[in-house]
């Protein structure tokens, strides 16, 4: 049995505890505040009003949970992809997974939502199209890199960037040909929102994200050894191809499922791993859980902010995360430049 001490040092255990407490507090805050404030203690005293119960069970509960799941998925996949590519600027957006998922979803909204497919698949149409989009991108990366083997990780990253650009062109074109009502839905979705959360879609997403996170945890030590370089890790007995497949597939499934429900939420995948590294160190046994936890807090709090800042209206949460993330990103670049 592996103990916590074998995975992290004392400082890192401290920070994981702090981040866990932050998750609890941010979740309580996000559930309590909004258009209708809910007193959580009423649940335990049995004095909760029917309105509060309805808000908790069917509106804010799933919404906060979706924000948490998306935050965890973005944070951990950002950390794993940065580790795999040994590139501090990598995130799910960079290898085209997010754009592929977005293209799938946008295609579904523009072409199929009002047609036969829309009737057949109902609310599952956009999520399925989104996961399919991210899987097509992964499939293309797989084919173009001869099964994740060709010419190392940089080659794979470049293929991802090219596919990302192609998918973005597709999204632009579809936006251009969409009608007014589609355009409004698209724009809101492209800016990201947790507003459409419902249990039917949330449960499969939670299952996908949980399985993916468990798989990533299992390879966290090997991900450390990859920091020596792909060739060195191979010489140390690491099956690089298996690690690449695990990380890329886990990220694709997680991000595909999440993007389909929340739209594009920028910067969490990029920024969170850097913050966690600054807190406690770069080893992935700490970085992966740390990034998942911090991702949850930032995502949940950004959603809370976007809900209450201009009540009763709502700011798209993607705007909030980008507003927070972009300046940090700039600071990071300046810091890298100075070093």
């Amino acid at each position, binding site marked *: 049995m*592996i103990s916590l001490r074998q995975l992290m040092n004392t400082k890192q255990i401290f920070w994981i505890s702090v981040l866990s407490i932050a998750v609890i507090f941010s979740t309580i805050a996000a559930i309590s505040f909004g258009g209708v404030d809910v007193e959580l203690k009423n649940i335990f005293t049995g004095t909760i009003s029917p309105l509060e119960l309805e808000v908790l069970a069917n509106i804010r509960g799933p919404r906060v949970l979706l924000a948490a799941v998306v935050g965890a998925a973005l944070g951990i996949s950002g950390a794993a992809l940065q580790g795999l590519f040994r590139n501090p600027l990598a995130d799910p957006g960079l290898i085209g997974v997010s754009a592929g998922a977005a293209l799938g979803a946008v295609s579904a909204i523009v072409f199929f939502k009002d047609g036969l497919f829309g009737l057949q698949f109902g609310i599952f149409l956009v999520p399925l199209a989104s996961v399919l989009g991210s899987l097509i991108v992964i499939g293309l990366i797989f084919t173009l890199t001869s099964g994740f083997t060709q010419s190392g990780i940089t080659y794979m990253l470049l293929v991802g960037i090219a596919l990302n650009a192609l998918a973005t062109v597709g999204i632009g074109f579809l936006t251009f040909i969409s009608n007014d009502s589609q355009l409004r839905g698209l724009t809101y979705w492209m800016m990201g929102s947790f507003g459409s959360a419902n249990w039917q879609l949330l449960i499969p997403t939670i299952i996908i994200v949980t399985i993916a996170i468990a798989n990533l945890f299992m390879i966290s*030590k090997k991900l450390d050894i990859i920091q*020596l*370089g792909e060739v060195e890790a191979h010489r*140390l007995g690491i099956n690089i191809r298996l690690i690449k497949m695990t990380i890329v597939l886990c990220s694709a499934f997680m991000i595909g499922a999440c993007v389909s429900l929340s739209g594009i939420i920028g910067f969490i995948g990029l920024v969170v791993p850097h913050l966690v590294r600054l807190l406690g160190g*770069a080893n992935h046994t700490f970085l992966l859980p740390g990034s998942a936890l911090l991702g949850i807090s930032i995502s949940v709090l950004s959603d809370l902010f976007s809900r209450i800042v201009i009540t009763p209206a709502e700011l798209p949460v993607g705007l909030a995360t980008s507003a927070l993330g972009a300046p940090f990103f700039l600071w990071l670049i300046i810091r890298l430049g100075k070093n």
Partner: protein
Amino acid sequence: MSVAFKNISLSYKEKVILEDISFCISRGELLGIVGPNGSGKTTLMKLVAGDFMPSKGVIKYDDKDLKRVSLLERAKYRSVMSQSQNIIFDFTVKEIIQMGVIGGYGLKNEKEVAKKIQHIIKLLDIEKLFFRSIQTLSGGEQQLVHFARALIQIWEMSHYETSKYIFLDEPTSNLDLKQEVKILDITKNEVKKGLGAMVIFHDLNLTAHYADKVLMLSKGKIAAMGNPSDIFTPDTLEAVYGLKVKVLKKPFRIFHF
């Protein structure tokens, strides 16, 4: 018991990089590889490490075809140190050295691993660097740390009971004179304990001092192989390096000016 190269050739897009190379590295022997830039030394090292397979010929680890040796078996059998390495994120020296312990990176036999690491860092005199970030170290210090990682991968306290090898590609390129001698002395000492070593050298005098056997490459072919004093002759060196040199027999020294 040896690492054997049998009639190895490597071509890429019809360009011949290595041609008909045969040699072996035995336990308790330090094989020096020398040759001009671009003669195929590093490619040879990559082949022997198993990074990729040759176009023709067979590489054997103790009579077993390298193709049939699993990645983990290879890692337990031989360690490799490249010319340069670049760590992007902020790992500590401790973590980097631990990564060299196969299956022991922070997990199994923690006490045993810690003891091994303490011994290695003492041997290399890098105790002061142990908790520092690798990125704050100088190029030379980083090279010492990577040597420590390569050494710990196959290191045995007293005697090498089983076949183990270390392959070093210009391990002293960033080091000052004292550190250079230290790394080569340590390697030589391990060889005396039964380790097999293959070292790519830049400096011919160092090669003559440390290597038991030398393989001289020129344009992807073996130009000469044997004892340093036998093959480092003015004629051979002029033919391979295109430079007139003088060779002094006692003490053995090569001069080129």
